């Protein structure tokens, strides 16, 4: 977890050592900015290194006929198996299909935004369900013991087996396909939230729960003023897992759904017509990955805001 070193949001107008505090805050802000910049720089370097590795491997294979010291390369390096980085990026700015003016990059982003929306709805629905379950489990340990094995089992059933069933049920019920896809995303999202939220709800030390008892706090006050705030850092850890899971769920859901929309659908189509344009599939996968990153980053921003006043965790 990230250490939150942000200073408190004390208004600078407050009396006393406000000058030094303000100065401390500026330098802390500068430090935070510097660390964020260096994080960005490292990310860029990693990207460039990956691209260079890809191109270097390809160039080596092309020069040696995919053989080195008598050993065959594990992956062939011809343009069909490994389109060049330039070709992949180039494909992004070419028309998506013959006869259309929309370029592939824009088309992929549009489809990705469909997926992102399904994943986001799924994440919200799954997280609410997950949090509600955690609160029920906290108060009713027998229910927790009885239900938990089933929840674990639900997560080990292969998604590819469940997704088509959910899509069919949704279709029978007359719901639009994206609802089923959202349902599948939610199904993958709730579990990490339940597990982490439950741990967080149980995290307050005895001295804090007993203090609440000593001031005669009610059940609800105990939950809202102690257990839930204490659970927040845990909740965000669960949400981050749930966010990636919900994107996976949405993409796999799209594969089974007859929507014809979403980045999952696009990947399926491009894989089907792979030989016509291998670089298109790679471009789509790239955009899908970026989608996931954006999703998690949004969550990170939310977390940073929610935990801005905490020192640790």
């Amino acid at each position, binding site marked *: 977890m990230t250490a939150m070193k942000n200073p*408190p949001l004390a208004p600078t107008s407050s009396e006393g050592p406000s000058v030094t505090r303000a100065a401390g805050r500026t330098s802390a802000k500068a430090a935070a900015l510097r660390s964020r910049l260096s994080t960005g720089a490292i990310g860029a370097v990693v990207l460039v290194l990956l691209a260079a590795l890809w191109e270097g491997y390809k160039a080596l294979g092309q020069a040696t006929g995919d053989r080195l010291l008598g050993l065959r390369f594990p992956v062939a390096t011809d343009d069909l198996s490994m389109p060049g980085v330039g070709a992949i990026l180039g494909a992004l700015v070419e028309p998506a299909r013959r006869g259309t003016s929309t370029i592939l990059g824009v088309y992929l982003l549009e489809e990705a935004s469909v997926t992102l929306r399904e994943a986001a709805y799924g994440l919200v629905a799954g997280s609410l369900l997950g949090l509600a379950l955690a609160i029920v489990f906290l108060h009713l340990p027998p229910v927790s013991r009885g239900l938990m094995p089933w929840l674990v089992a639900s997560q080990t059933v292969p998604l590819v087996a469940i997704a088509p069933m959910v899509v069919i049920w949704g279709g029978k019920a007359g719901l639009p396909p994206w609802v089923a896809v959202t349902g599948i995303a939610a199904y993958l999202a709730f579990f990490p939230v339940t597990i982490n939220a439950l741990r967080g709800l149980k995290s307050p030390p005895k*001295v804090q729960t007993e*203090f609440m*008892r*000593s*001031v*005669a*706090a009610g059940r609800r006050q105990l939950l809202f*003023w102690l257990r839930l705030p*204490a659970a927040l850092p845990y909740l965000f850890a669960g949400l981050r897992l749930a966010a990636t899971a919900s994107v996976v769920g949405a993409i796999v859901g799209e594969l089974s759904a007859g929507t014809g929309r979403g980045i999952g659908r696009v990947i399926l189509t491009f894989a089907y017509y792979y030989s016509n344009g291998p670089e298109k599939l790679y471009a789509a996968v790239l955009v899908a990955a970026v989608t996931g990153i954006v999703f998690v980053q949004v969550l990170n921003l939310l977390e940073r805001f929610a935990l801005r006043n905490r020192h640790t965790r």
Partner: protein
Amino acid sequence: MPESPIIRIDGVTKQFNPGTDRSVTALADIDLTIAEGEFVSLLGPSGCGKSTLLRIMADLTPPTAGSVSLNGKSPATARRDRDYGMVFQQAGLFEWRSVQRNVELPLQVAGVAKQERRAKTAAMLDLVRLPEFARHFPWQLSGGMQQRVAIARALSADPKILFMDEPLGALDEMNREHLQGELLRIWSDTRTTVVFVTHSITEAVFLSSRIVVMSPRPGRIAASIDVDLPYPRTAETRTLPAFFDKITEVREALHGMTVAEDAA
């Protein structure tokens, strides 16, 4: 004691895990009365049941036998009426709340309106001499400052009784002596009845109007020693011959019981 008892403990016994092979008799047949305005320390070796006795008074754990009355009520009723405040060995502040919001928590639980809460909190922070830290967060304070916030928090709902379980135990010697002085000042400002758990003889003698010496296995009251050193007590008090005499007296009471136990 000239005044009326605010705490009355009659024949309290506490057994943990009764009927099992891990059964422990933590307290055996405790009788104790504490008058309004007293500063009573519970003193004794580790494991003699000081915390257990305090927790029974505070309705954090039930006695196995016997009865307790607090301010004329059962501990459960007294707790619900917020007749007492509690300070633990760890400050246990809520790290997501500012100092001010920590201190006002008991008032918030009691449903006191915001304006009144803020005024009360400000007065409490003045009392513990931390007014300029209202908007700080617990992790920005030293251990001693956090403990002062915990004291302010315990006193914010104006309890008649203050329970403290080794509140200064985690502090270094200098901080500790400083806070002992502060605590006496707060006690004389608020006229709260204090029950204070410690295993430091000097601390007990410096602070208390009366010291209840406890003996272990099972926990019993071995002696009740009045400390007649005049208040206000200051750093100078620590240098008085009477101070050392009292320390010796308490030490002998503690010691005598160890000897008696060895003989038994």
